[in-house]
C-alpha cells in the first residue's frame, strides 16, 4: 500500500504505483483544482507542493504532479490548492495578491502560480525579489503576459518574511499562507514512516503484460514524458526516495554524491556553492524549479540525451560513476566511458548508478548554455569546462559539450591539448579548431549543424571570457 497525506487527509491506495499524482488527485479524489496543461512538465499548471521529512526538518518543494508517480508520494505530504484554500471562503495572501494585481485572466494557469508562490512563502529561501520571480520559472501563462503575476510575486516578499523565531511552517501559518493543519504534518508523517519497516510499495505492483518495462525509476521527468501510457502500469524499482542514494559528502580529495540527488539539492548544498561560485546563475538555466526538484543526476546521465545539462556538467568534472546491482556488486567507471553511441550505455540492464564522485582539484569551472527561450528550455548547445591552473598555465583541463554529437560528449582531444598551455587568444583559437574536429552535430528543430558548430565556438570562447576576462583581450 502507498500511504501519504493528501492535504489534510491520510490516504492509502492500492492503485498501480505508476499512477501519476495528477490523475490520482483529479480522478480518484475529485480534486480538480490542479490543472492539466501538457502532462509533460512544461507548463506548471499541475504544480503541487510536496512536503518531505528530511531528518528533523519538514521541507516543502514544488513538483509537477503530471510527471510524479504516486510511489514517489509515499510517506510525504501532498498539497493541492484545495489543501491551502481557507475554510472561511477568504483568500490566502498569495491568492489575494493574484486577484488584486490581475494576475489571473482565463485562470487555467493560475492555480499553478498560486502553488509555486505559496511554496516560495514557506520554503527557507531568502525572500528576495529575485527568488520570488524565480519561484514562478516553471509556470507558463498564455494570457497575462506575466507582468501582473510578477507584481503579485514581488508583493509577497514582505508577507512571506519569517516571523520572529518561528520555524518556517509556523511562520507561514501565522501569516495565513497555509492553514493550521500544517502544524502537525511533521508528526503525522513521522508516524506513517515509523509505522512500517521501510517505505515499500511493493504491493502496488501490477504490471500489464506487453510493455517495455524500464528497470529503474527516479524522478520520472524523462520516463513520464517519453512513455506516459506505459509508465502507469510499469513495475519499476524506485530509487528516488532511497535514502542511501541521497547524500552529498566531501572528503579530502573527492566530492561524492548519491545517484538520486536532484538539481535543487546541489543548489542548496554549501559544498557546491563553495566549489562553484556561479552555481545559481548556471543551474537556473536548467529546466525550472519544479523539474529541478525532481530531476536526479543519475536519471540525467542514463537518459543520455546529447544535451543533458547535468551530464555535460559532470563530464567536465571528469566524474566517475559507481554502478551497482541487486547483489550489491559494484564497479566504477569514468562517466566519459559510459556513452557508447546514441542512447547506448556501458551498463547492464540490471545495473543502476549508485554513486557519483569527482576530484576537487580544479581551480576554475564554467558552464554555458544557449537555448531559444530563456528558461524552461532544452539547450541547443551547452558546454562546461573545469581547469586546474598553476599560475598562467593550465595544469589539466576537462571540457564537455552537448547538442553537437549523438551522445553527451567529453572533448578528449581538446582537453588533452589544453594541458600545459597558457591562456591566450591563440590557445583558444587552436582549441576551437580541435573542437570542430571532435563534434558532428545533427540538425534538428533546435538548429542546423552549422549553427550548432558556430554556437559551440562562441560558447567555448565565452568560457574564457567569463573566467579570465582580462587575460585574453
Amino acid at each position, binding site marked *: 500500500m502507498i500511504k501519504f497525506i493528501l492535504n489534510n487527509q491520510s490516504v492509502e491506495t492500492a492503485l498501480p504505483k505508476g499512477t501519476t499524482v495528477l*490523475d490520482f488527485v483529479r*480522478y480518484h479524489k475529485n480534486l480538480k483544482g490542479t490543472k492539466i496543461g501538457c502532462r509533460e512538465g512544461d507548463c506548471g499548471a499541475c504544480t503541487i507542493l510536496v512536503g518531505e521529512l528530511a531528518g528533523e526538518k519538514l521541507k516543502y518543494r514544488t513538483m509537477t504532479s503530471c510527471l510524479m508517480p504516486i510511489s514517489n508520494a509515499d510517506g510525504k505530504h501532498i498539497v493541492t490548492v484545495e489543501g491551502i484554500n481557507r475554510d472561511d471562503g477568504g483568500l490566502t495572501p*498569495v491568492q489575494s495578491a493574484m*486577484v488584486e494585481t490581475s494576475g489571473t*485572466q482565463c485562470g487555467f494557469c*493560475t492555480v499553478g502560480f498560486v502553488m509555486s508562490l505559496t511554496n516560495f512563502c514557506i520554503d527557507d529561501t531568502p525572500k528576495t525579489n529575485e527568488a520570488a520571480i524565480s519561484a514562478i*520559472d516553471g509556470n507558463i501563462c498564455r*494570457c497575462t503576459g506575466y507582468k501582473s503575476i510578477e507584481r503579485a510575486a514581488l508583493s509577497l516578499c514582505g508577507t512571506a518574511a519569517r516571523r520572529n523565531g518561528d520555524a518556517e511552517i509556523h511562520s507561514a501559518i501565522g501569516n495565513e499562507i497555509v492553514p493550521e493543519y500544517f502544524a502537525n504534518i511533521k508528526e503525522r508523517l513521522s508516524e506513517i514512516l515509523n509505522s512500517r519497516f521501510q517505505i515499500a510499495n511493493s504491493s502496488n505492483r501490477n504490471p500489464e503484460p506487453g510493455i517495455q518495462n524500464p528497470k529503474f525509476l527516479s524522478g520520472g521527468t524523462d520516463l513520464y514524458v517519453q512513455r506516459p501510457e506505459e509508465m502507469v502500469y510499469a513495475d519499476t524499482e524506485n530509487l528516488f526516495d532511497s535514502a542511501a542514494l541521497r547524500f552529498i559528502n566531501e572528503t579530502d580529495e573527492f566530492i561524492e554524491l548519491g545517484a538520486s540527488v536532484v538539481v535543487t539539492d546541489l543548489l542548496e548544498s554549501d559544498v557546491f556553492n563553495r566549489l562553484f561560485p556561479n552555481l545559481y546563475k548556471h543551474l537556473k538555466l536548467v529546466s525550472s524549479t519544479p523539474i529541478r526538484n525532481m530531476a536526479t543526476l543519475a536519471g540525467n546521465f542514463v537518459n543520455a540525451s546529447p544535451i543533458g545539462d547535468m551530464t555535460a556538467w559532470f563530464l567536465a568534472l571528469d566524474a566517475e560513476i559507481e554502478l551497482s546491482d541487486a547483489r550489491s556488486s559494484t564497479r566504477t567507471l569514468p562517466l566519459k566511458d559510459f556513452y557508447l553511441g546514441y542512447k547506448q550505455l556501458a551498463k547492464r540492464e540490471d545495473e543502476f548508478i549508485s554513486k557519483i564522485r569527482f576530484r576537487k582539484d580544479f581551480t576554475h569551472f564554467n558552464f554555458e548554455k544557449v537555448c531559444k527561450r530563456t528558461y524552461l*528550455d532544452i539547450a541547443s548547445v551547452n558546454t562546461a569546462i573545469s581547469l586546474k591552473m598553476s599560475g598562467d598555465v593550465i595544469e589539466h583541463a576537462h571540457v564537455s559539450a552537448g547538442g553537437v554529437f549523438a551522445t553527451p560528449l567529453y572533448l578528449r582531444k581538446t582537453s588533452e591539448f589544453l594541458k600545459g598551455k597558457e591562456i591566450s587568444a591563440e590557445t583558444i583559437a587552436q582549441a576551437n579548431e580541435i573542437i570542430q574536429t571532435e563534434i558532428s552535430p545533427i540538425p534538428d528543430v533546435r538548429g542546423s549543424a552549422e549553427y550548432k558548430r558556430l554556437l559551440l565556438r562562441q560558447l567555448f570562447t565565452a568560457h574564457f571570457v567569463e573566467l579570465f576576462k582580462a587575460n585574453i583581450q
Partner: protein
Amino acid sequence: MRYIGKEMSRVDGVAKVTGQAKYAAEFQVKNVAYGFIVQSTIAKGSIKSIDTSEAEKQSGVIKIFTHLNSVKRKDKDDAFCALQNEKIVFNGQPIALVVAESFEQARFAARLVKAEYLKEAHLTETEKAPTVDSRGGKVRGNPKEALQNAAVRISAEYTIPIEHHNPMEPHAAIAMWDGDKLSIFDKSQGVKEVQRHLAKSFGIATENVSVVSPFVGGAFGASLNPNYYPFLTAAAAREIKRPVKVNYTRRQMFTGHGYRPYTIQKVQIGASKDGKLQAIIHEAIGNTSTFEDFSETPNGFGRTLYNCPNYDTPYKLAKTDLPTPTWMRAPGAVSGAFAIESAIDELAYELKIDPLQLRIINYAEKDPDTGKPFSSKALMECFKQGAAKFGWEKRKPEPRSMRDGKWLVGWGTATGTWGAMQLPASIRITLKADGTANVGSATADIGPGTYTVITMIAAEFLGISPEKVKFELGDTKLPNAPVQGGSFTTASVGSAAHGAALNIKKKLFDFAVRDFGFAGVSVEDTEMAKGFLFSKKDNSKSVAIADLMKKNNLTEIVENYTSMPSKERNNYTSMAHGAQFVEVKVDEDLGIIKVTKVIEATAVGKIMNPKTSHSQEMGGIVWGIGMALQEQTEIDHRYGKMMTTNLADYHIPSNADVHTVETDFIEEDDKIINPLGIKGMGELCLVGIPAAIANAVFHATGKRIRTLPITIDKIL
C-alpha cells in the same frame, strides 16, 4: 460613473485562484467513460485496414470506434469531421476513438490500434502547393503604373510560419444523452455555434442540444469553430449509452483545431523622395487545407492605415495536405502588419526619413478606401505619447549605432489597427425587489474579463453595486450572443446590457410617473442608485425601487433585450489603433535577442476597466514577442507531419522572456460606434508588435529578418 472606467478586480478571480472555477473537463458526471483519440501517421491516402483487436483485449476497454462503426454526420459541410470514411487528409487525423473505463486505460489501449494505409503523395509546403484566388479587396487607383513612376521603390517578401494558439487549457468535452436530447460540457468561444453544429450533425432539433461552457482556459480563436471532438464525443456517448469525456492531449491540439496559416507576402511600395506613398502592392498567399478554404485577408489591414492613392491586395490560398487553419488572435492583421509595417520601415531607411515621421507623413485622416470619416481616430496622439514616453527622439538613425556594453541596441516602431466591430447580441436582466440582479447572455469569457465588464455595466445602469449582480454566460439556455472573437464582445454584449438596464429604468420610471408623482420629470433626468429611482434635478422626486415593484405586485422585472449596431455607423469607418515602440538588445556573439522594452499606446475608445484592460494589452504584447522571436510549428515535409507539437518544442514566452512592458490608453470619446463608446482591444494590442521587434532588430544589427520567428541562427 461609479464603476465604468474605474479599476475593478475581476469578479471570477476568487473562483480562479482557489481552483473552484470549473472548466469543461472538470464537471463531475456519473458513470462517465473516457475516450482517447488515435491519430493517423500519414498525411494523405486512405486506411487500408485497421486492427483494433489487441486494443480491445485490454482491461477497461468498452468500445473502439473507427470509420467502420462510427456515427456518420447527418449534414455535410466542408469542415473536417472525424471517422466519416477511410480517407486521410492530414497527418494526425483521428482514425479511432478508444473508449474505456478510465483515461489511463483508454490511453494505454490506444497505442495498440494498428492501421495500414494506402499512401498517396502529399504536399505540405505552401511554396509548392497549388493555389486558388481568394477575396483580396478592390484595386484602388492604378498601382502598377504608379509604382513604375515612383521615385523610390522597395520590394520585399515576408514569411510567417504556422503558429498555434496553445491556450493553457487543452480542449475537452463531456457529452451525455437523454433520449434524443444531448447535453455537452465543452470548451467553447460560442456555445450557440456548437449547439447549431451538433443539432445539424445529429439531425436533431436545436433546442434538444444543451451546451455549457462557463469557464474557458484561454482559446484565442482555437474554440471559435466547433472542432471535431464535440461531435466525436457525443457520437460515442450515444453509441455506448453512457456519458463520454474526450480531452485533447497537448499534442493532439496541434491538429485538432486549426492554426495561424503559413503566409507568404510580397510588398512593393513606391514613394516620392519626400516620403509620400504613391503605390502599394501587397500580395499574400496563405495555406489552407485541400478540403476547405480558410481566408483571413492578411493584406487588407494596411489599406485603412496609409493615405496612399494606389493600392492593390491580391490574395491566394495554397491547398496543402494539412488541417484547415483558423482564426488566431488578431487573424490576418498581425500577419499583414508584419509585412506592411516592416516594409514601411525598409522604405524609411531607403528615404533616410525617421520611420515614425514617415508614418506621420502618410497619416490617413479619412478612410482611404471609402472616403468615409473615422468615427474616431487618436492614432496621432498615440504616436506622440508613445514616442515621448519611450524617448524616441534620442534614437540614432543608423543601424548598429547604439550599444549597451556588449549588447547591440535597436529601437523600432510599428502601427497596429483592428476593426471596431459590433454584432447583434441579446441579454436578459432580471432586477429583483431585493436589489439584486441576474444577468444572462450566451457569450463567453475566455479570459479578457467579460464576466467582470458586463457585471460593471449592469451595476452601473441598474444603480446597484457589482456584488449584487450575478452574471451568467456560456450556456445555450441563455439569450443569443455572438461568439467571443474579433474583439467585439464588450461592444456587442455590453451594449445589450446597457440597453436592457435602461429599459428596466424606463419601466420603473413609467410606474413612478403613474404611481409616485414623477410627472414632469423626464426619464433621461432620472437615475437609479442605492435602491432608489430619483430625479437628478429635483430632490423631492425619489422613490424606492422595492416600493415601485411592490405597488405593482412585482417581485422582479425581467427585460430581454437585443442590441443592434446603429445605422449611423455605416457612414463612418470605425477602427482601433495603436503605436508601438520597442527596444531590443542583441548579443552579437551569441545572437541572443532580448526585447528589453515595449511601450504601446493604443486608442481603443472607452476604457471600461483599466485593470483588466492593461492586463489584456500586456498579454497581447507578449503574444507579439512570442510571434516575433519564438513561435513556430515546424513541419517535417517528408511525412507532412507537424513536429513541434508540445510546449517544450513549441515555444511560447516564459516570464523570463518578458522585460519592461508598458501600456497606455488614449481614450476616445466615440459617440458613433455604440452608446458606451466601446471599441475592443484584445487583438489590436499585438498587431504591429512583431514588425516593431523586427524593425528594432534591424536597427540593432543591420540585419533585416523577413521570416519569423527571428531566432538566433538568423541573426548569427
